[in-house]
C-alpha cells in the first residue's frame, strides 16, 4: 500500500468558508505534508491541472454554458480525469480525503467544481461538491469523485461500443437519479448500458429525457433484489435493462 495525501473534512470546511468570505486563505494542511509534497503526488496534480486547463480554462466560451451543456463538458472532461487516477487502488480513490486534497490543491479544478455546481460568481449549494461530507449519501455530490466514477463508466461504455462521444449521454438528472446514487452505479457495464438506452429511447420516441430517466430509474432499481449487475454479462444486462426502459417509455406515451 502506498501512502496517499488527504485533507480532513474540517480543514476543507474551514478553507471553503474562508474562500467564500473572500479571505485569501492558506491551503488546507494535508494530514501528512511530507507525502503530499512528494514527487509522485505532485505529478498527479500536474496532470490533473493539464486536463482542467484543456477542458475548462482554455475554452473561452465555457463560462457562458448553462444546464445540460455544463454537464456535456463535465462528462467529456471526466474521461481524461478518470485516466489520471485510474491506476490508483480503491484504498485511495475510496478515500474522500484524497479527493478533498485533489480539489484544494488543483486551483483549476477547484474553480471548475465551483462553476459546475454553482456559477462563476455564486457558490454551489452543497459543500459536498468540494468533498465535505455530512452524511454517507453526500459522496456522489463530490465533483472530483463523481467525475472519476463517470469517467470509469464512460470508458467502459466506449469499450462496449455504446458511443463514440460520451456527450451523447450527458444529463445531470439522468446520472444523478439513475446511476450515481443507485446500486446500478456499482457496475460500470450496467450503468453505461442504462444511460445509453434511456437517451436512445428518449430521442427515438421524443419523450422528455428527465421524465423517462425518472421512471426508468425506478423500474430498474426494483430489479435489485433479483439481480446483481456486477455478476452479469453485458448482453444479459442489455436484455433486462432495455426491457424495463421500453416499458417505462410505453407508460409515458400511451399511443
Amino acid at each position: 500500500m502506498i501512502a496517499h495525501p488527504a485533507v480532513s473534512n474540517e480543514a476543507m470546511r474551514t478553507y471553503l468558508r474562508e474562500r467564500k468570505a473572500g479571505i485569501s486563505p492558506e491551503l488546507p494542511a494535508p494530514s501528512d505534508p511530507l507525502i503530499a509534497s512528494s514527487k509522485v503526488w505532485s505529478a498527479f496534480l500536474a496532470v490533473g491541472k493539464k486536463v482542467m486547463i484543456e477542458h475548462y480554462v482554455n475554452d473561452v466560451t465555457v463560462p457562458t454554458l448553462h444546464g445540460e451543456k455544463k454537464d456535456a463538458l463535465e462528462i467529456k472532461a471526466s474521461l481524461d480525469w478518470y485516466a489520471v487516477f485510474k491506476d490508483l487502488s480503491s484504498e485511495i480513490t475510496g478515500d474522500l480525503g484524497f479527493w478533498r486534497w485533489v480539489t484544494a490543491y488543483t486551483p483549476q479544478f477547484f474553480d471548475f467544481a465551483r462553476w459546475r455546481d454553482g456559477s462563476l460568481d455564486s457558490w454551489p449549494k452543497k459543500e459536498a461538491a468540494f468533498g465535505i461530507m455530512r452524511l454517507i449519501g453526500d459522496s456522489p455530490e463530490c465533483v472530483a469523485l463523481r467525475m472519476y466514477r463517470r469517467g470509469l463508466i464512460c470508458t467502459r461504455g466506449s469499450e462496449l461500443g455504446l458511443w463514440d462521444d460520451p456527450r451523447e449521454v450527458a444529463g445531470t438528472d439522468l446520472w444523478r437519479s439513475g446511476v450515481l446514487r443507485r446500486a446500478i452505479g456499482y457496475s460500470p457495464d450496467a450503468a453505461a448500458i442504462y444511460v445509453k438506452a434511456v437517451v436512445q429511447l428518449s430521442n427515438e420516441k421524443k419523450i422528455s429525457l428527465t421524465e423517462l430517466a425518472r421512471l426508468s430509474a425506478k423500474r430498474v432499481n426494483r430489479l435489485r433484489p433479483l439481480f446483481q449487475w456486477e455478476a452479469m454479462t453485458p448482453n444479459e444486462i442489455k436484455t433486462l435493462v432495455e426491457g424495463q426502459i421500453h416499458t417505462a417509455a410505453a407508460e409515458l406515451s400511451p399511443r
Partner: protein
Amino acid sequence: MRTEQRTIVPFRGASAADALLDLIVFEMSIDGSAPTPAEEVERLHSDHLSALALTAKFGFSEDAVDRLAVETGIARSNMLLVLVATGNVARRSSILAKWELDKDVSDLGAHAIRPSSVGMAALGDAGGFTVTALIRLRSGLERKSLRAHVAGTVLSRRSVTFRLPQDNPGLSPIALTKELREDLGIPEHSMTFVKCDSLLENDDLTSRVSVYVDETILSELTVDTPATRQLQASLSIDIVIAMASQIHRELEEVGAVRGAFAELAKQNYSASSNFLERTCKSMRVPVDAAHKENILDWARNDPASLRAYLEHGWKVRDLTVRVMRGGEA
C-alpha cells in the same frame, strides 16, 4: 401510491439456495492473527486494511447442491456460484471468482481473498467494501411458473461488509450485535444508540462519540435512498442532542452557571464552542451566545425543542414525505 419494499422471491427453492450459502464461512484474519468467522458487518480500522486477509470456506456438500437443483427445478449445470466485491465510495466492483455448480463441489474448498493484493478492484475501498457470494441462473430457461427463468437471476446471496471509520461525524456507526447490546445494557430490539465520552477537554469531539446501529439496518445504510437518508438525519439529531447534553453537564461540573455557558466554552473549550456554532448553523439560527445557550439548555431540559429546530434545519420533513410516498431517490 404505495411501493412494496419487501422482496418477494417469485420462484421455488430460494430457501434451499439460502441454506447452501449458509454453509459458507467467511474467515478473517489481520496480519496473520488466528482466523475468526466474520460477522455480516465488520468494523475495520483503516490501518488494518492492508493486513486483512479474508477466506471464503465453502463447505458445500453434493447433497445440498442436489437438493437445490430439485427444489428449484434448475439443473446443476445451469447454476453459477459467483464471488463479487464492491467498494462503497469509489464504487468499483469486480468479480473475484466464478464456479459452476455441476463440478464436484467439495473441490471448492476455500477461496482466499487478500484485499490489498486485489489492487485496482473494489476491495479495500477506504469507505468500506462488501464481498458477496451469490448463486445465479447461468442461462435463460423457458418460462415456467415458480421457476427462475431470466439469465442472471440471483437465487440467493450472502455478504460480508467491512466498514471503515471516516473522519466525518456520524459516518461510521458501529454494528449493534447481540453481544454489544448486552455490553451496553440496552434491550434486544433496540435499533440505535448514541454514547458520549467526556467532550469538553477534547479537540476532536467526534472521536469521543460512538453511534450504534442495528447490524442488519447498518448493512442497508450503504445504499443511498430516502429511507437511509432519513435514518441518518434522525441519527444526526440524536448525536447533536447527546453531545450538547454532555457538554452542558461538563460545563456545570467545572462550575459554569446558566447564561454563562456559551461564553465559557468560547474562552476555554474551542472544540465544544465550534460544535455549538455548527449546530446554530444546522438549525438555521443566528450564531450568537443566546442561541448557543439555548442549545445547551434544550439538550438537557427540553430536547423536543432542539429536535424540532434540527428537523427544520436538516429538512427531515421533506425526507420523510419522500419515504412515505414510495421511497424513490
